[in-house]
């Protein structure tokens, strides 16, 4: 976490706020609820109490405005800067401004920005916090759509605000453990992207750790999904990504959230349509489309949009043939063929995998295309398939790409 220079803070525990105007994007009651909930996040973990005023000068004046709005920091239209706020002080000090050119919402869809999340961040500034470089912290500068039901502050946010104001007077709403600022200890790489070492909750209370990343050369290594992406190959398992690139020698170890923070872990399938620079991820009966790091708006969508019957509730694997522009979807012992040009399923499908792919007598966990071949994965084995002959020509271990 960080504070502003000289760590300005409110010299009192009773802080007032006033909502000066409203965005036409939301019901007034929803705006008021979002802002009240945002204040409550901070009052839950400090001695501060927030009182709403309906007239006159409040400590924190909240307003919506577009473009130039009377301070030196004009807004920039849709996207880019969403809002800003000033550190504690007189006059403009503490005030929070929201860019009216954004689409404000009380939901966490991709069609707008959740006012509660942005207001909670900006009010952190109004109370004296600067930005945090901890991915997942509320005070991280970049907006991330998150589930706001039962939203909890990240420990880093709590460390920061309690460094300014201390913990709540009455019995702590939090678990009884204190949050002594601890020296950042190494977190297992799976929990944080590389090059960041945020503070960690005291070890005795660290929530049960997710299973750690399997070794690259574990002979029993299996994958959930595999896809190419702009010449690289990404291997997915749980929240982990193994990244193989022609641009650097070693295998890079990442997490899904380090590339796409708002995507859920545990993909069932993934494939790239190189011509449109798009990768599609599948989980249960939904799918997402990304281009590089950007998630396309309007996702997730139901897989039935692609032409699957309602009886199909998830996909095992998918692979796009860049030559024919057809994508094969594997479900159980059958597969479908989807025409990316017409965006529709081909007639005569599903067909039995074993009937068409000689040597593949089981389900397919993951698949991708490389060097003119298909690679099908089943458990810890990998099958190199001649696409034209639809015939297995080689069997390897799933992690043979990791130069074990």
């Amino acid at each position, binding site marked *: 976490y960080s504070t502003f220079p000289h760590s300005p803070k409110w010299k009192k525990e009773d802080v007032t706020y006033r909502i000066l105007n409203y965005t036409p994007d939301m019901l007034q009651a929803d705006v008021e609820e979002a802002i009240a909930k945002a204040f409550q996040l901070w009052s839950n973990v400090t001695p501060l109490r927030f009182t709403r005023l309906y007239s006159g000068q409040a400590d924190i004046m909240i307003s919506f405005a577009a473009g130039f709005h009377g301070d030196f920091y004009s807004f920039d239209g849709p996207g880019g800067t969403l809002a800003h706020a000033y550190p504690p002080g007189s006059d403009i000090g503490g005030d929070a401004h929201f860019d009216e050119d954004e689409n404000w919402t009380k939901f966490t869809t991709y069609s707008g920005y959740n006012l509660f999340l942005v207001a909670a961040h900006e009010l952190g500034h109004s109370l004296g916090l600067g*930005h945090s*470089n901890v991915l997942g912290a509320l005070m991280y*500068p970049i*907006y991330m759509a998150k589930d706001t039901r039962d939203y909890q502050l990240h420990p880093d946010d709590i460390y920061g605000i309690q460094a300014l104001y201390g913990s709540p007077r009455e019995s702590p709403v939090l678990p009884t453990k204190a949050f002594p600022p601890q020296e950042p200890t190494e977190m297992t790489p799976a929990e944080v992207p590389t090059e960041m070492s945020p503070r960690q909750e005291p070890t005795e209370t660290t929530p049960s750790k997710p299973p750690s990343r399997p070794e690259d050369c574990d002979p029993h290594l299996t994958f959930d999904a595999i896809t190419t992406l702009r010449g690289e190959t990404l291997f997915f398992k749980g929240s982990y990504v193994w990244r193989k690139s022609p641009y650097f020698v070693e295998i890079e170890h990442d997490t899904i959230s380090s590339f796409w923070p708002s995507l859920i872990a545990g993909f069932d399938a993934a494939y790239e349509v190189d011509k449109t620079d798009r990768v599609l991820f599948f989980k249960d009966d939904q799918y997402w489309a990304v281009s590089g790091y950007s998630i396309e708006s309007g996702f997730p969508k139901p897989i039935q949009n692609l032409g699957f019957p309602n009886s199909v509730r998830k996909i095992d694997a998918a692979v796009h043939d860049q030559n024919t522009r057809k994508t094969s979807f594997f479900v159980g012992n059958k597969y479908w063929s989807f025409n990316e040009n017409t965006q529709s399923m081909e007639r005569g499908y599903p067909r039995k995998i074993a009937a068409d792919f000689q040597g593949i007598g089981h389900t397919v966990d993951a698949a991708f295309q490389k060097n003119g071949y298909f690679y099908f994965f089943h458990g810890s084995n990998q099958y190199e398939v001649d696409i034209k002959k639809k015939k297995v020509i080689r069997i390897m271990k799933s992690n043979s790409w990791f130069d074990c």
Partner: protein
Amino acid sequence: FPVVPEKKEDTQFAKKYLEKFYGFKEEKNSLFKAKNLNHMADKIREMQSFFGLEVTGELNHKTLDMMKQPRCGIPDIRS
């Protein structure tokens, strides 16, 4: 992910971003072009370090992508 060729407007965009959030100040006098480029590379490194990106000082795809994410208007460095 792999770099796409840097476009002129990307450089302009990055300059504005670094001015806004990392206190980058461009010397207007063109005699300081080399100094500007070094100064800008330093600020790119500062931003890459903040976001845990590979610190290269180059305006690569990942860095540009991060700059284009919707965000808060307050600077990331204490200023």
